[in-house]
């Protein structure tokens, strides 16, 4: 057998791509032929060597990216200090009530959202099975710390593995997605709860209204808030105040 053909056969053998008979035959040959066994081992070590060496190169690249990332973060912190200084100067300039009123005028959807968004209280920790589920505890801890992006990853994981029908988890997931600034995906989550008329569908309406405000769909938000007020459901007094602010915003 020519050397290139032998290389090809060794490779197919190592990849498990020889058919059963050929594989058995070649294995037997290796067991009886020391020189062939040595060649197979060397071939295997060469492939392993390429893998290890490439992995090490990639690790080096990532370590460099890490250094750049840390440096840029330091730079960002420096820029933040400059921004704070600028804000301070701006504050001094705007401290005259007349100028302040003239320039800022009123309110914005962002402001309305920030004023009204707060996480729903933790009902999960009261459940008896929670303490045995580390991931659930971790998710709730992120949720309570306002680390919504991480919380939503874990809630998603839980919802696709064993908690598929848990409406309370769906609800917290929606709030986390909203807190992580993804109002459109949050609306999808809240719609599921509202459509199924689950125990959290009323509370989900309030958060959906906030998500609509965050997406700047204020007419839809106002409509939904009106139904909350009419049915006197979750947070209806806050909804009343919010409607007034939305109207002010629309008058601008």
């Amino acid at each position, binding site marked *: 057998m020519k*050397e*290139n053909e032998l*290389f*090809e056969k060794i490779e197919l053998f190592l990849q498990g791509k020889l058919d059963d008979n050929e594989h058995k035959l070649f294995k037997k040959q290796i067991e009886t032929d020391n020189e062939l066994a040595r*060649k197979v*081992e*060397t*071939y*295997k*070590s*060469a*492939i*392993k*060597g*390429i*893998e*290890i*060496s*490439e*992995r*090490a190169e*990639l*690790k080096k*690249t*990532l*370590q460099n*990216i*890490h250094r*750049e*990332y840390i440096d840029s973060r330091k730079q960002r912190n420096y820029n933040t200090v400059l921004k704070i200084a600028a804000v301070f100067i701006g504050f001094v300039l705007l401290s005259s009530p007349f100028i302040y009123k003239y320039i800022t005028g009123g309110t914005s959807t962002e402001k309305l959202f920030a004023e009204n968004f707060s996480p729903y209280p933790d009902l999960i920790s009261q459940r008896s099975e929670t303490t045995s589920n580390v991931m659930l505890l*971790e998710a709730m*801890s*992120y949720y309570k710390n306002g*680390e919504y*992006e*991480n919380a939503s*990853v*874990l809630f*998603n*994981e839980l919802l*696709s593995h064993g908690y598929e029908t848990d409406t309370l988890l769906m609800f917290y997931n929606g709030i986390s997605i909203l807190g992580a600034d993804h109002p459109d995906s949050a609306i999808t989550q809240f719609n599921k709860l509202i459509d199924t008329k689950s125990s959290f569908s009323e509370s989900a309406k309030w958060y959906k209204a906030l998500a609509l405000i965050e997406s700047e769909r204020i007419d839809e938000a106002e409509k939904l808030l009106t139904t909350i007020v009419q049915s006197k459901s979750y947070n209806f007094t806050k909804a009343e105040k919010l409607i007034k602010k939305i109207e002010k915003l629309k008058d601008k």
Partner: protein
Amino acid sequence: MKILYSDKKIVSDLRSGDKLKVNNTLHYLYKSYYRMAVNVIKTNSGNEYEAADVFQDALISFYESVQREKFRGDSSIKTYLYSTVRNLWLTRLKKSNRMVDIENQYNNVVTAITDKDNFDDEQPETLLKRIIDKTGEQCKELLRLYYYENRSMKEITALMNFSNENSTKTQKYKCMKKLIGYLDTHPELKKSLLERN
């Protein structure tokens, strides 16, 4: 302005074979998910130094899954990275029998460094690099594409501008022959490679 990449674009850029795109994507993944990894590890009694190391290993695992077409997008990249970081870290914790105890932080760092040193056995790695470099730039690239990135002969032919698949195949044979020849002169290195996971 922050650029947003979809998971699909991340995977296709990593598979593009374009080094600039790959590099930009790795930067993007780092910027987007590094803090998440730090949070996971810090809440499980680790520190930022350990978080960086584990996160880089998780990115390597993701990169390899993409190249070997094992990452099919059944879960999001974020979920993949999150669970990999978490699993890698918990395995390391178990291995070193570390207690979740703030007083043991110092010992933890020492253990992590020792583990790392055992893993990155410097000398054979340097020798290995020297041997692979000796095969030449073209061989290095061809072997990387075939064995690490799992590319087909057809793809390699296009990426490296070979005239046809047969000449790529011949070239690959010549490169392997060179590498095997060098490894034959370093039996200790060969042995240590075969012992690695």
